């Protein structure tokens, strides 16, 4: 099962290594991880995607909370149940001729992706969506054109509506 864990942690040296270390120490997977300071520069927000059994996820949450540098931890719900997830994807494509360029352009329009850099032979696209949408975008693109490089940011998440994760 897939679990998304949101963490508010002290923005201090070594804090992230404690979080990451905990996962390897206890044998949990990290599928993706993002971290950056929040509007309060003393805190960082970290979103981790992991897979495992339900009780395993619970144990991870408890262990994370035990870290002295961790301020808040919560499990992010699936979108249908009240969670929002987004991921940024950058894709570099080889576009040697006009027909491919046109096809890429129209596909980008359909997916609401933007062309953020181009020269005669290389397009770079930017796409934002959920993990599943990102997968779909990359897969569809790959069917019409040769993909040269893909970068995914890993997901960030937030709860819908009036649920806040604040100090």
């Amino acid at each position: 099962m897939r679990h998304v864990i949101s963490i508010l942690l002290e923005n201090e040296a070594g804090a992230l290594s404690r979080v990451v270390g905990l996962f390897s120490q206890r044998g949990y997977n990290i599928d993706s991880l993002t971290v950056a300071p929040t509007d309060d520069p003393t805190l960082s927000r970290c979103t981790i995607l992991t897979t495992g059994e339900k009780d395993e996820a619970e144990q991870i949450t408890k262990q994370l909370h035990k870290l002295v540098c961790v301020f808040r931890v919560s499990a992010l719900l699936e979108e249908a149940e009240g969670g929002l997830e987004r991921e940024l994807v950058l894709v570099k494509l080889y576009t040697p001729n006009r027909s491919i360029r046109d096809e890429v352009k129209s596909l980008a329009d359909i997916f609401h992706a933007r062309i953020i850099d181009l020269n005669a032979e290389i397009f770079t696209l930017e796409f934002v969506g959920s993990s599943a949408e990102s997968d779909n975008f990359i897969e569809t693109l790959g069917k019409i054109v040769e993909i040269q490089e893909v970068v995914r940011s890993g997901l960030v998440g937030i709860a819908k509506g009036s649920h806040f994760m604040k100090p």
Partner: protein
Amino acid sequence: MTMMSGAQMLVRTLEDLGVDTLFGYPGGAVLDIYDALLASKKIKHILGRHEQGVAHAADGYARATGKVGVCLVTSGPGSTNTVTSIATAYMDSIPMVVITGQVGTPLIGSDAFQEVDTVGITRPIVKHSYLCQNALDIPKYIRQAFYLAATGRPGPVVVDVPKDCVRPSQKFEYPEMTDKVRMRSYNPTRLGHRGQVKRAAKLIAEANHPVLLIGGGAQLSGASVEIKNIVERFNLPVTETLMGLGVFPENDRHFLGMLGMHGTYEANQTMDKSDLVLAVGCRFDDRVTNNLNKFCPAAKIVHIDIDPASISKTVNADIPIVGDAKTVLEQFIEVFDEAGYKENVEALKAWWGQINKWRESNCLKYEKNKDLIEPQEIIEAVYEATQGKAIVATDVGQHQMFTALYYRFDEPRHFLTSGGLGTMGYGFPAALGAKIGCPDKEVVLFTGDGSFQMNIQELSTALEFNIPIKIFILDNCTLGMVRQWQKMFYNGNISSTNLNFNPDFVAVAKAYGHEAFRVEKRSELMDTVKKALSMKDRLVIVDIACNTDAKVLPMQQMGGSMSDMFLNEE
């Protein structure tokens, strides 16, 4: 306004925190701290002979006194030598602050002489750690370190101090101590959830086959009085984990002995057949539960622990209660009083009838070899000669289990042993630390010929600081516990467990300036034990030749339930 160098602030902070004993070993990166330490009239420095021993001594001091143990070592090898000791303290939740020297901040990351990433190396085995960036971080971090080490689920905290932070030429205004350390990301729960306590209290009062399981958390929290109250109120049978021994008096009729792999038959049977386990400050580790799928099939589990992550980690709790053991048990007593809950007399009478039948197996009886002294006899002799009142440290192996089973502890903080990590070499320095912390108590070490050689160098420390503990080596010329497993589960193949090249321990003791005796005959055992104990102001070693083939029994069968046990050699 007091202007001080980082080194002076470090010493002053320790003084302000009430530290009177500092275990340490000097080196290049901590020269300035050692220089500042000379001026301290309040702190006594105990110079160990190896950093592992230094930190174990701080651990033993902490276990025996309940205070935070403090040690100071240099960078690089000084800090890596403490790793085993830090891990030992971490596994057993012992409050300890380890101050390590570090190369100067401009050199960090350059592979400088005696540089090692101490914070990185110790990260998985500390409650928290700090790397100071400037002199003013030192008082702040050390105060936080003490607070973290001693509160919540206790544990070791490392404070890494780069050399340029303690430079004598740079002085700063010393920030005076304020009352309380506040950390927004750290707020341990002390008080249990009242609704949960009420629900659990009802279960306890209504249970037909209840059992009280006490772990190290109750030891650390000091919950003996509350436990006694509850046991007597409901006439509960009591068992303890290795770390819980002594919290409840072992000579009380309610006590069933230790549980688990080498627990007593009656304790494990009682657990297995119980319908309610009230677990206080334990973490259900694999040496306690045996096969989790077969663990206490009929029991509801009420689990009190200050660490939420210890609850439902291995054994699922029906009623989890996060909180400090002593505080939560006080809440229980309130609820019992309010609700007027009393002993379930009929049910408990039948339950005790059953338990007393299990007791009849007399699982701790052992046969005495005609010529050779049995290890159990040694523990019993020392128990008798000390009237069960000594603080007892052990190393790890057969002698550790024999001590747990045959020395009956009636008071908390009297049994010091590496339970979680199982560190050979722990006992001797820990016993020294305990004696320093409790100079008026008799402190005894049971060790093995294998374990003792893992920190034997501390004999020199004991002489320098005149630490008169009594050491009993259960000398069977083998790594007894490993050999036991080889005999029982590896077709009797003896692989690298013979210790036929042991030194003459009496001669070693004498070389280090101590008194020592060798015992080979049963008839000499008791007299020699008494003679050693009578030499109040000296460290004495008694090296006792004992039966190599003795086995620690009873023993749970691997993969079985709590009650599946080997009771004897057949």
